[in-house]
């Protein structure tokens, strides 16, 4: 276990927006024409402060198409809950993650249309030398913060050191542990990050402790974006709500009581001609049933949280709502964690395998609607492709009973903690399904924060993990959940073989060879039945089809910088 109380489980359970798929990042999305009848009521087009063609937009902007928009207008996104923070080192919940990823900050690189990292705030791809251990990153010279100051290399170093500062307890720190000196800094043994230096104002040099194919992916993440030291030092803990970034929109107002915040276009954004919108407004604290009504009325434009199973049922049952549905493919999966230290019978592998075989995922899928697909393997369906060797668990009650008998028919009683939808439904179904093999499940429900707290205190027998990839490789999920000492490895799963194979995969630049190694990792985790693997999550949200050039990234959220509305 690491010393970080905020885990990727916390992050990824909530991120929702923080989700990817390599081939999917940035390339999902749709562009629909505005129906005449809804144009008049479209909130997005309500208050354009300026209009007209903003000029040519560079074809090098990474991600989906961005040219041809019309300036002006406002878009309103409504969320279930407030963001946990708008500080890029701390923000991880759905609302906060999207704000720091797509509005306030711009990372060095961003996933392109084909899912590969492309230069964003960097001037070019990094020069990789010293057998993959040294990255020299040229920075753009025209990037400025929202206060007008130019961004220089020291701002990146400051931001990365901040992520590693123990006091800040950033969930993202373990993502950059391969930088030389990072672990020492995170442990409080060093004050500066020895593996990073500024060659000049616009060139960074990074030294890793070992070759790591995931480091480039880390550079696409908002927690690696620059932050202005003078602003952070001025506001301290309140930086989150006085945040100054280098992204396409700047924070104009934050109203905690009114449960909304407004972002306005930053005219100094380095991708000239972008963004098109005058304003983006976030609202939160609204029930999803009400959100759907507001969307239908044209009062809001986007529902930022994915639709929960109940909302999906509602949408599927209503032709009037169906047109608002939007699906984004991504790499995400869900499983049940089992704490072997609290329930001794779970130490027996046959018992854990029996639970997997006794799980009727088709029934779960039917209840979840399209929110998840029945899937009995550790990694998301599309993450390994043809390299996969593990045969996913299916429903086989006879096999499950035989395994329980083989294990000596132990008495298994466990308390299953659930949080928000769809977890209560999952818990109730599994309670019934597992009863068939003599496993007695007691259900308890609490808030996400409360359950996370219980997990950290080792007071839970079983709970749900929902994982959304932010890297297009299984190393992401393994390093967080299944590697020894992973930041979200709350079951303390440990397999020397998994650790060895994963380390080797990190050093393997060839994707096919790397995937072959990762397939072995999945085989090991799956055979161990380290969890009860129940589904592949699908990201389904809702937005007004009248929005022009609407694109959504499985990693970052809505591409606001290239979104426009009809004048």
């Amino acid at each position, binding site marked *: 276990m690491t010393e970080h109380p905020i885990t990727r489980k916390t992050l990824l359970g909530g991120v929702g927006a923080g989700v990817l798929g390599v081939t999917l990042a940035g390339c999902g999305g749709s562009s629909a024409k505005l129906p005449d009848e809804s144009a008049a009521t479209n909130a997005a087009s309500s208050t354009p402060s300026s209009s007209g063609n903003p000029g040519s937009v560079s074809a090098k902007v990474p991600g989906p198409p961005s040219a041809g928009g019309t300036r002006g207008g406002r878009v309103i996104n409504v969320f279930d809950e407030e963001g946990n923070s708008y500080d890029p080192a701390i923000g991880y919940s759905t609302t906060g993650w999207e704000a720091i990823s797509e509005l306030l900050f711009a990372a060095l690189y961003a996933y392109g249309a084909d899912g590969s990292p492309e230069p964003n705030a960097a001037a070019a791809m990094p020069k990789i030398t010293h057998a993959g251990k040294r990255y020299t990153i040229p920075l753009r010279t025209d990037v400025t913060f929202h206060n007008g100051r130019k961004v220089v290399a020291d701002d990146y170093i400051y931001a990365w050191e901040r992520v590693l500062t123990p006091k800040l307890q950033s969930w993202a720190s373990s993502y950059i542990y391969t930088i030389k000196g990072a672990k020492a800094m995170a442990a409080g043994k060093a004050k500066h990050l020895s593996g990073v230096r500024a060659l000049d104002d616009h060139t960074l040099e990074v030294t890793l402790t070992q070759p790591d194919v995931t480091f480039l992916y880390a550079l696409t993440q908002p927690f690696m974006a620059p932050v202005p030291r003078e602003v952070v030092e001025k506001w301290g803990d309140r930086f989150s709500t006085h945040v100054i970034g280098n992204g396409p929109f700047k924070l104009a107002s934050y109203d905690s009581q009114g449960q909304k915040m407004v972002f306005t276009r930053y005219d100094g954004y380095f991708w000239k001609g972008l963004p098109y919108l005058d304003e983006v407004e976030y609202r939160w604290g609204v029930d999803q049933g009400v959100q759907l009504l507001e969307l239908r009325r044209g009062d809001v434009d986007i529902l930022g949280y994915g639709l929960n199973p*109940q*909302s999906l049922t*509602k949408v599927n049952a209503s032709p009037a709502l169906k047109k608002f549905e939007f699906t984004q493919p991504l790499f995400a999966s869900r499983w049940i964690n089992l704490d072997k230290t609290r329930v001794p019978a779970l130490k027996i592998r046959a018992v854990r395998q029996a639970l997997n075989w006794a799980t009727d995922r088709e029934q779960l899928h039917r209840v979840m609607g399209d929110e998840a697909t029945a899937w009995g393997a550790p990694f998301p369906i599309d993450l390994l492709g043809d390299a996969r060797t593990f045969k996913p668990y299916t429903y086989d009650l006879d096999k499950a009973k035989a395994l329980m008998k083989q294990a000596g028919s132990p008495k298994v009683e466990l308390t299953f903690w659930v949080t928000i939808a769809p977890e209560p439904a999952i818990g109730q179904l599994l309670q*019934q399904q597992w009863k068939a093999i003599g496993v007695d499940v007691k259900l308890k429900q609490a808030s996400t924060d409360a359950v996370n707290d219980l997990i950290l205190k080792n007071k839970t027998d079983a709970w749900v993990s929902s994982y959304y990839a932010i890297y297009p490789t299984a190393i992401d999920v393994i390093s967080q959940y299944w590697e020894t000492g992973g930041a979200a490895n709350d079951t303390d799963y440990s397999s020397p073989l998994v650790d060895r194979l994963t380390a080797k995969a990190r050093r393997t630049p060839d994707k096919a060879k790397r995937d072959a190694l990762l397939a072995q990792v999945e085989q090991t985790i799956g055979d161990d039945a380290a969890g009860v693997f129940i589904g592949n999550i699908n990201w389904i949200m809702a937005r007004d089809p009248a929005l022009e050039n609407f694109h959504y990234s499985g990693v970052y959220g809505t591409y606001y910088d290239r979104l426009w509305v009809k004048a």
Partner: protein
Amino acid sequence: MPATRAATARRALREHRTLVVGCLLLGGMVLFALVAPLFGNPYATPLDGLTESGQSHGVLSHGHLLGTDELGRDMLARSAEGARTSLEIAFLANITSVGLGVLVGMAAAFYRGWIEQLLMRITDVFLSIPTVISGLALAAVIGTTVIGIVAVVTALYWAWAARIVFGEALALRRRTFVEAAIASGVPGRTVIRRHILPNLSSLILTLAALNGAAVVSIGSGLSYLGAGIQPPTPEWGNMLAEGAGALDYSPHLLLVPLACVVLTVFSFVLIGEALARRGALSLRRSWLDI
């Protein structure tokens, strides 16, 4: 003579129709709860409990009289099992809250002095606490089992009974036959048991009936708000919560438990009103007679 007896019965039925309807309704709900096992397993989640697209079955479809819920469980079986839970809470909490209120009210009225001051100030404190908010807080502390909810509801409602019983017992305390008993050296507890309590019986019965309506409402209300009985245990309140978001596509998920709550509350109100018109609370005309 049969004709005369029949006429008498008809007249009695007319005169007591409110009470009869209330008793029939409540009796029906109790019977519904008692025969719950006949309707099947309320926890079973058969795969065909939902449509291919994951929708719950509506009323009178696929062999489900009241349809299925969002997990494919039979709504009739769950409503009946929910009746057991809800009525168990209602009856137990009613007995404990009215019982405690009666004890406190009588003790304060009979012993007067510092006992009255202490007990009635405590009563005033409890009367001043907002029901729902304090109910949520108490449930979080005490727990969400049947016993826990009974304790919460008791804590929330005993003071009302205590206040009303106190007023009536105080009047009785000043009556000649009570003072005579005291003057004759009859022990206080005996006076309470033999002279005061019997004279409060119709009031207590009326209180219990009206309190029953409130108890059913608050018990279900706590579950609806997530502070009461937790799923998968069926209880009308948590069934209401599960169905609240489905009104526009599966209205039976909301309407079935709602009907159960409304009918039960209505039955208690009818009984309470009927008794009130004939007892200590009958000085005003019932809204049912308007």
